[in-house]
């Protein structure tokens, strides 16, 4: 069993910087967990505490039912892939892979078997004699993965392993990492600030904000029901439209500008409404609002990305910015006023003060 349990884990750095503020997560055996959040939210710190590279200020971390708070990184049975790969520059690829095994006193034949096997899986067999400097970024990345795989550890830890690669290679390696992880069935914790990477890789996402967990859940569940405005704006690209509203007898109105009319089935007071760009339809002016939401938006910029296009606009009367996804090849004039409608099921409500989701 190689489940990982974090129980109220905190990290206070010297100078009273509280980087992680009481995080609890249960990671099941074989699960792929992605820690995602903006820069400085404590993702790396959390991962490094699991690895044993940082002390735990308080709380408890167990790997496979063994509390590891005081266990050396080498004895935690984990392997880590670093952002800059951290390959040993003076060792051949073969030696890079073998080093961790040699140190553990594994017999030569077994080391050889494992290295060859990992090299096969990762298709780096041709480079085994080369030094890391003679490899491309993508190949180095594979070697770094290989070094983790040969150990056959209880868990893989990844700290933004793809962020040094170019966009195309990143997609390729992302698919590869996912395939590998499923094939090997090894529990994995993966840190990234790229929400797309997070969405595509994770069995479950952990969205972190300022050292706290904002939400844990399957990527699609997080996408469909973000627990807060923070998650709503972080997960999904372009981000969810968030518009502050006030309520009156006729329903919801935009706090700034005139171009918002919404039903108010839950009888809410002031709240923030959220609508994903793909849930806004361009409709005829005068279409009934119902329980949904109608926006009138002035077009500022039209951005075709190929498979689809995005309109960047503002709510009529000087209100909040809004992004709408439309089909590709559709065009609208700049400064045109569009009427947009979102169905009730696609509108999210968040508390105006706390930003937490209001279930309707």
């Amino acid at each position, binding site marked *: 069993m190689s489940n990982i349990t974090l129980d109220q884990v905190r990290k206070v750095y010297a100078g009273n910087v509280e980087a992680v503020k009481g995080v609890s997560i249960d990671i099941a055996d074989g699960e792929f967990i992605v820690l995602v959040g903006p820069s400085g939210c404590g993702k790396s710190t959390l991962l490094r505490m699991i690895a044993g*590279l940082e002390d735990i200020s308080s709380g408890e971390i167990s790997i496979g039912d063994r509390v590891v708070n005081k266990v050396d*990184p080498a004895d935690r049975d984990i*392997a880590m892939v670093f*952002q800059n790969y*951290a390959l040993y*520059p003076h060792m051949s690829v073969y030696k890079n892979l073998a080093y*961790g095994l040699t140190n*553990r006193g594994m017999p030569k034949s077994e080391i050889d078997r494992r290295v060859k096997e990992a090299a096969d899986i990762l298709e780096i067999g041709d480079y085994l004699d080369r030094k890391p400097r003679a490899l491309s970024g993508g190949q180095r990345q594979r070697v770094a993965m290989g070094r983790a795989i040969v150990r056959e550890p209880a868990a893989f830890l990844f700290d933004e392993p793809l962020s040094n690669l170019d966009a195309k290679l990143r997609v390729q390696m992302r698919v590869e990492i996912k395939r590998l992880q499923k094939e090997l069935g090894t529990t994995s914790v993966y840190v990234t600030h790229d929400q797309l990477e997070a969405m595509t890789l994770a069995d479950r996402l952990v969205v972190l904000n300022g050292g706290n967990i904002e939400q844990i859940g399957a990527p699609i569940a997080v996408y469909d029901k973000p627990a807060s405005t923070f998650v709503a704006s972080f997960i999904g690209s372009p981000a969810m439209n968030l518009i502050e509203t006030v309520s009156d007898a006729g329903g919801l109105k935009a706090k700034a500008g005139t171009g918002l009319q919404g039903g108010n089935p839950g009888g809410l007071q002031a709240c923030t409404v959220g609508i994903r760009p793909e849930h806004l339809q361009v409709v005829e002016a005068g279409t009934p609002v119902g329980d949904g939401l109608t926006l009138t938006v002035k077009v500022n910029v039209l951005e075709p990305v190929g498979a689809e296009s995005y309109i960047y606009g503002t709510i009529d009367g000087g209100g909040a910015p809004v992004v709408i996804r439309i089909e590709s090849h559709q065009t609208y004039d700049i400064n045109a006023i569009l009427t947009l409608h979102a169905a009730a099921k696609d509108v999210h409500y968040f508390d105006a003060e706390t930003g937490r989701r209001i279930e309707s």
Partner: protein
Amino acid sequence: MNKLRIGDHIVLLLGVFFMVFPVVLAFITSTHDAVTVYREGLQFGFGDQGLKAYETVLTKAGGFTKEVNGLVMLKNSLILGFGFAIGKIVISMAAAYAIVYFRFPMASLCFWVIFCTLLLPLEVRILPSYEIVQRLGMVNTYAGLIVPLIASATGTFFFRQFFMSVPDELLEAARIDGAGPWKFFIDILVPLSKTMIAAIFIIMFVYGWNQYLWPTLITTDEGFFTLVRGIKQILQVWVGAQIPDYDQAMAMAILAMIPPVLIVVIFQSWFIKGLVESDK
């Protein structure tokens, strides 16, 4: 462009001439006998005794006690040069490793104290150093010659700067790979420092080789004389009508130059290879 090249070459040639001329002159002069040199000064054409002076210098026992010849002095110089360079590298790497990788109290204070000793050359502390060596009974031993000099602020400083530029992730990866402090040092840091080691080795070897004051103090037994002292010794024979063997002095000076030049040539190719290949 072409014109500039010619200009460059002229400058370089002048430099070469300037550096090599005295050496050539010394060599030419060493092929004359001592009397000619004494009477006519430095010589500009080859003399008739060929390389005889070299043979004499290397094999004939000289000095007061007649128990030391050039070969023995060469051996002593090599022991001093290598002992000095290797000792300095080992000590300064160990010190830099401690300062950079171990969070002991006042590590940076320790570093600055070591650094400040840069300001104190050997000559400043030569009396207390001599006193200590003498009381430890290390006068006229190789250990007495080498050990008191091998602490090196310069070396520690360079290794510290280098270690600090090694990415932390390398240490972390090694820790996860099960390498303790000792293994990390031997398996990762030392190989990565190859270039630095070569550079410091060149500098320290030449520095040790050229030591004069300290060996003069510590070794009174002629069996421990180095080449550098040997030159002086040849010139120090003004007794009665005897004139110094100038040819032999020149020959010994030339001989004394060869090992450091070899070290620089050999290690330089290493050093440049390291520089070109270096990546951390």
